[in-house]
C-alpha cells in the first residue's frame, strides 16, 4: 500500500518535470521553426550563426533572456506586474497533463479532460489583463483590453464547435475521443466545426491575422511592451505552449489523435503521428501569420458574433438532430 502511494507520487513528480521541460523544448522548437520558416517565406536565410543553420540560436537567446534584468516601470503595480507572467505560464502547462500523446503516453486521463483544458486555458486572459493593467502603459492597456474582448468572444464558437464533436463521442475524456475516431477522423464528419475551431484557435492564441493584442505596428508590443528578460520570455513560452495546446486539441478532436498508419517504430508510432499532426497545424499557423495582413478589432468582433457563432450553433443543432436519428 505504502509503496503504491510512493510510486504514484514519484510518477506525478516525473510527469510534472517532463511537462515543464516539454514546454521549454516546445518553445525552442517553435521559436526556431517560426524564425526559419518566416525567413524562407521572406526570402532570407534566417538564423545561420549559432550552430549549423542556427539551431542553437534559441538556446543562446534563452540564456541571454535569463541573464537580463527584469525592469519594473515607474508607477507600475509591482505585484500584478510580476505575477502576470507566472500566471500566464501556469495555465498552459496544466492542459498538457490530460493530452494523450499515444495510447499510453498520458499523465492522467480525466473523465472531464476537455472541460479541464478549456477551463484552465481561459485563465490566460486574466494574466494578460494583469500585465496590461499592471504595466502603467497605455499601449499595454489597449492590448489587454483587446485581448480580453477577443478571447472571451472567441471562446464561444470554439466551445460550440467542440461540443458538436462531444455529441458524437459521448465523452469528455481525451483518450475516449481519440478511440472513437478509429474508423474515420472527425474533420471529415465535422468539416464546419473543424474550420470554426481552427479560425477560433487563431484568435484564441493571439496569432496573426488576429494578433491584435500585440499588433506591433499599432500598439508597439501590446500587453508585454514593458516586459524584459524572463518576464517577456515567459509570455513567449506561454504563447508557444498555448499554440501547442490548441493544436493538440484539434489533433485529438478532429485529426484522429495518435491514429495513423503503423510506422516501423512500433510502440512509438502513435506518439510520432500525434506530434506530426500537431506540429503540422502549428506550421500552418506560422505560414498564415507571415502571409496575411492583420484584421481590425471591430471587424474581428463582427466576424465572431455575426458569422462564427451562428454557424457554430447551426452546426451543433444539425449534429444533435443527426445523432438523435
Amino acid at each position: 500500500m505504502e509503496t503504491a502511494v510512493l510510486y504514484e507520487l514519484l510518477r506525478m513528480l516525473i510527469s510534472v518535470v517532463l511537462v515543464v521541460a516539454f514546454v521549454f523544448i516546445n518553445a525552442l522548437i517553435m521559436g526556431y521553426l517560426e524564425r526559419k520558416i518566416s525567413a524562407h517565406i521572406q526570402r532570407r536565410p534566417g538564423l545561420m550563426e549559432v550552430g549549423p543553420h542556427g539551431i542553437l540560436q534559441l538556446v543562446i537567446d534563452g540564456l541571454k533572456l535569463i541573464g537580463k534584468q527584469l525592469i519594473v516601470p515607474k508607477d507600475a503595480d509591482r505585484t500584478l506586474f510580476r505575477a502576470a507572467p507566472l500566471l500566464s505560464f501556469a495555465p498552459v502547462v496544466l492542459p498538457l497533463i490530460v493530452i494523450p500523446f499515444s495510447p499510453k503516453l498520458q499523465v492522467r486521463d480525466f473523465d472531464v479532460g476537455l472541460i479541464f483544458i478549456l477551463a484552465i486555458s481561459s485563465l490566460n486572459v486574466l494574466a494578460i489583463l494583469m500585465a496590461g493593467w499592471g504595466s502603467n502603459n497605455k499601449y499595454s492597456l489597449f492590448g489587454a483590453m483587446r485581448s480580453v474582448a477577443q478571447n472571451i468572444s472567441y471562446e464561444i464558437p470554439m466551445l460550440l464547435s467542440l461540443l458538436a464533436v462531444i455529441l458524437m463521442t459521448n465523452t469528455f475524456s481525451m483518450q475516449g475521443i481519440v478511440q472513437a475516431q478509429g474508423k474515420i477522423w472527425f474533420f471529415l464528419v465535422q468539416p464546419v466545426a473543424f474550420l470554426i475551431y481552427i479560425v477560433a484557435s487563431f484568435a484564441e492564441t493571439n496569432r496573426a491575422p488576429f494578433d491584435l493584442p500585440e499588433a506591433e505596428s499599432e500598439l508597439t508590443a501590446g500587453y508585454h511592451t514593458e516586459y524584459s528578460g524572463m518576464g517577456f520570455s515567459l509570455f513567449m513560452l506561454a504563447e508557444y505552449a498555448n499554440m501547442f495546446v490548441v493544436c493538440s486539441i484539434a489533433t485529438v478532436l478532429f485529426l484522429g489523435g495518435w491514429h495513423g498508419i503503423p510506422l516501423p517504430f512500433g510502440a512509438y508510432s502513435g506518439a510520432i503521428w500525434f506530434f506530426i499532426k500537431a506540429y503540422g497545424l502549428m506550421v500552418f499557423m506560422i505560414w498564415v501569420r507571415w502571409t496575411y495582413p492583420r484584421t481590425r478589432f471591430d471587424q474581428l468582433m463582427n466576424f465572431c458574433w455575426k458569422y462564427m457563432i451562428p454557424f457554430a450553433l447551426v452546426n451543433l443543432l444539425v449534429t444533435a438532430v443527426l445523432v438523435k436519428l
Partner: protein
Amino acid sequence: MAEGKILTLNMGPHHPATHGVLRLVLELDGEIIVKATPHVGQLHRGIEKIAENMNYQQVIPLTDRLDYTAASLNNLGYCLAVEKLLGIEVPKRAQYIRVIMGELARIMGHHLWIGSHALDIGAMTVVFYTFRDREMIMNITEEASGYRLTPSYLRIGGLAKDVTPDFVKFVRDFVKWFPTALDGYNTLLTDNIIWRKRTMGIGKVSAEDAVNYGFTGPTLRGSGVPYDIRKVKPYSSYDDFDFQIPVGENGDVYDRYLVRMEEFAQSLKIIDQAIENLPEGPVNVDNPWVANPNIGEVMEDISALIRRFKIQCEGPHAPEGEIYQSVEGSKGELGFYLVGDGSEHPYRMKIRSPCFILTSALPKMVVGQMIADVISIIGSIDIVLGEIDR
C-alpha cells in the same frame, strides 16, 4: 462627452509605424479617435537656410536628403529650377536620362511605400519582395552615379557623366522583370479580403476637400482629380512619352493604393519608351558658365583650366530674379522657389513639400476612425519626414 472619458495617447516619434519621426497626439474615446494633433519638426535640419550659404551646385546633395526614398526626383526639381533661373535647357539625351532616373526613383519610392504600408497593416512579407526589386534599381543607380540611395547624379546643366552601356542593359533587364514582380504584389494584397476590409472606406477625402487642402500626387488622384504635373506642365521632355494618369473614385485608402499600384506600371512604361528611344549626343549644356569643360580640353587650354576651376569653386552665377519650378515627385507636387541675387548663392530657397500639406490634413482624415485606421491612413498618404521637416 464627459471630459474624463477621453484618453490621450502619444503616438510617436519612436513608434514603429509613424514613418520616421512623426508624433501624433491622439485623443481617444475607447479606440475611436476624437482628435489628433500631428507634431512635426523632429527631423528639421534647416536645408533651406543651409542652401543660402552654398553655391548652386553644392545644394544638390542637400536635396537628396529631402525625400530620401526617391532622391533623383528631388535633384530633378532643384536642377530644373536653377536652369529656369539661368535660362538654359539641357540636351535631349540628358533630359531622357533624367526622366529614366526620375521614374526609377518614383518606383523606388513606391516600393518603400507599399512595403511599409503593408507592414503597418500586418502583412509582414511584402516588404521583402519589394526590397528585392528596389535592390535592382539601387544597382542601376549605382551604375549611373556611383551612389545608391542619395545619387546626386543630376547637375545643373545636365548630368554628372554619361550613362554606360551596362546601365542601358540593367534598365532593360528591370523593365523586362518588373511586371512579374508587380503581379506578385497584386497577388499578395489587391484581392486579399483582409486587405480590402482594412483599406476600403477608410480615410475618405472628397475631391473638393483634397483640392482645398492642396493635396497633390497620388493622394489627390486617389480622390479622382486627374492632376499630374507631368501632364499639366510637362518638363524634361515628358510630353514625348505616352502614359496615363490613373485616378481613383472614392478617395479612400484602397483607391490610393490602387493608384500607386498603377503608377508602378505607368512609370515602367515611361522608362521603357525612354530607354528604347534614348537620343545620342552630349549630356551637358553647351554653356561655358555652367558646364565643366571636358578633361582633355583642360589639359591643353589654360582658359579651360581656369574655367573649370571657377566652376568647381563657385558654380554658375544666377541672375537676379525669382522663379518657381515644380515636378511630380513620388509623393506629389515638389516645388522649388528660388530667388537669385546675381551671386553664386541662392538668396532664398523655399521648398514646397507635398508631404507637409498631406500631414496638415491628417487630423481631419483620422477623426472618427480607430487606432488601427490611423496607421493605415498614415501609410496611404505616404509621408516622408525628411521632406516635411526639411
